[in-house]
């Protein structure tokens, strides 16, 4: 089986602002057709990565490609933006334009603009076409920004914290619209978030970024399958073993309990653990939230 080509790919990507290194050797692949959640704490480098991909910031070193095109070449960057829908974190649009004016303005840049989707989302999002953007609520502005991204006929959607500042009901509405759209249109989605629940809900692939580096990349199913917590209970105080099995992310002791977090299944660790003669062994799956917190904590 041939692997899906990467729509987004970065190799040893670095970006510095004066003395601050926002991205520090980021290696990233987003396969075609995937919904990739880009998880990270505030200031982890998510927005900077997105800005580099869209030509808004220039890489200090390393490579970044979208559709196989170098992001720092002017003509290539134009092609990338022509084929990409984008929603920024601040959902900042032109306050002086009406909703309709904003749509007409955007239409002019995208020859493959989807009038049918525009009508559908105008109805579904109940956007007041005659109202000025500055008079819209944040939720409405998010919906408008999403409409402007979805109707471009884009092959790739890049969304920076698409649900930030929205209430749970609005968040759900936006996510559902996104999932429905991606299901009906063949496209790749790369969206940043620090809301683990929404990544869990819609992504099939995840990249966790921490301090400018990708610390975990893979399909969500594989990650869920491979991450295991192994809990060993002993008669007396738990020993301090040095596990040689691959994938040991963290080992911690508390009284008679020894807990091991593994990113490569439990089998290898169980083989070693049995030699320690525990009185009980439990292997439990790990949630994405725990994986995220443990991964970030381990890197710290």
């Amino acid at each position, binding site marked *: 089986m041939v692997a899906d080509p990467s729509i987004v790919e970065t190799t040893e990507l670095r970006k510095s*602002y004066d003395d601050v290194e926002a991205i520090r050797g980021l290696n990233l692949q987003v396969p075609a057709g995937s919904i990739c959640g880009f998880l990270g704490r505030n200031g982890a480098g998510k927005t900077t990565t997105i800005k580099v991909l869209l030509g*808004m*910031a220039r890489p200090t070193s390393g490579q970044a490609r979208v559709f196989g095109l170098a992001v720092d070449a002017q003509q290539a960057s*134009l092609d990338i933006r022509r084929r990409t829908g*984008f929603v*920024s974190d601040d959902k900042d649009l032109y306050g002086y*334009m009406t909703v309709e004016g904003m749509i007409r303005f955007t239409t002019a840049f995208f020859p493959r603009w989807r009038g049918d989707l525009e009508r559908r989302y105008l109805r579904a999002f109940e956007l007041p076409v005659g109202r000025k953007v*500055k008079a819209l609520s944040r939720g409405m502005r998010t919906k408008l920004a999403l409409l402007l991204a979805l109707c471009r006929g884009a092959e790739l959607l890049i969304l920076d914290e698409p649900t930030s500042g929205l209430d749970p009901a609005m968040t759900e509405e936006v996510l559902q619209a996104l999932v429905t759209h991606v299901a009906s249109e063949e496209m790749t989605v790369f969206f940043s978030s620090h809301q683990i629940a929404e990544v869990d809900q819609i992504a099939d692939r995840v990249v966790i970024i921490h301090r400018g580096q990708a610390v975990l990349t893979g399909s969500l199913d594989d990650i869920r399958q491979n991450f295991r917590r192994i809990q060993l209970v002993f008669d007396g105080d738990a020993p301090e073993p040095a596990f040689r099995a691959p994938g040991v992310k963290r080992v911690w002791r508390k009284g008679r309990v020894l807990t091991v977090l593994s990113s490569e299944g439990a089998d290898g660790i169980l083989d070693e653990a049995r030699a320690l003669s525990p009185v009980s062994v439990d292997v439990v799956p790990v949630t994405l939230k725990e994986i995220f917190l443990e991964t970030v904590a381990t890197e710290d």
Partner: protein
Amino acid sequence: MLWYKSWEETRWRFLIGLVVLMCSAVGTVVAYPQLVKLLPLAPRLDLSGEIGRRVTEAIELAREYRGYVWSQWFRQNMMQMWALFAVLLGTGGLLSQASGGGTLFTLSLPATRNRLLGVRAATGLAELLVLAFIPSLLLPVLSPAIGQAYGIGDALIHSACMFLAGAVFFSLAFLLSTVFSDIWRPPLIVLCGAAVLALCEPVLPGLSRYSLFRVMSAEVYFRGGGLPWLGLFASAAVSVAMLYAATRNIARQDF
């Protein structure tokens, strides 16, 4: 559509400028008969110093309608107001809050930064062109109503000089708007610079022959000389250089 965006962002500044300048032009014409009545009182005034010299000169110029129009309109009212609106129209752009936000949205569009800036500059300059010519062309149109005549050729030449030389103010505000993201510093810096330039004329009379304001008002042409080609060329070159610097500045910036 970038033209539409630029127009939307600047239209109120432009329209207010147009109305103010047109009202001022009308006021300049209709005030002349009243001024003529007051002229016989002028010799009684005791005027001394640089300001006195200038007032005396303005009175002398006002004895003839062409001199009055140049002194009152092209050298004073229009020049001050037009320069102000040149600065205001030059303020704003990609970085600025004056553009109504949406910087990242704009940058996500398939348009180069040069094109974004080029359209913004061209829109502003086109609006300034209108501000330079339309109010001034009211002078030859309205003058017959008060029994005077003003040549349309003179109006066109003075307006062209105002535009070509005064574009320096627009370009400087435009350049500074690529440096500062707030809406206050660019116009304040340019207006302070203009005020210093204006104050230099009476304080350092020797330098006044090189003054930008002198080129803007086409004083040499008014006094019977030719067009101030050197001044116009130098001003235009400075404007082009500053607009180019603005594009280079935006091209190298991270957002």
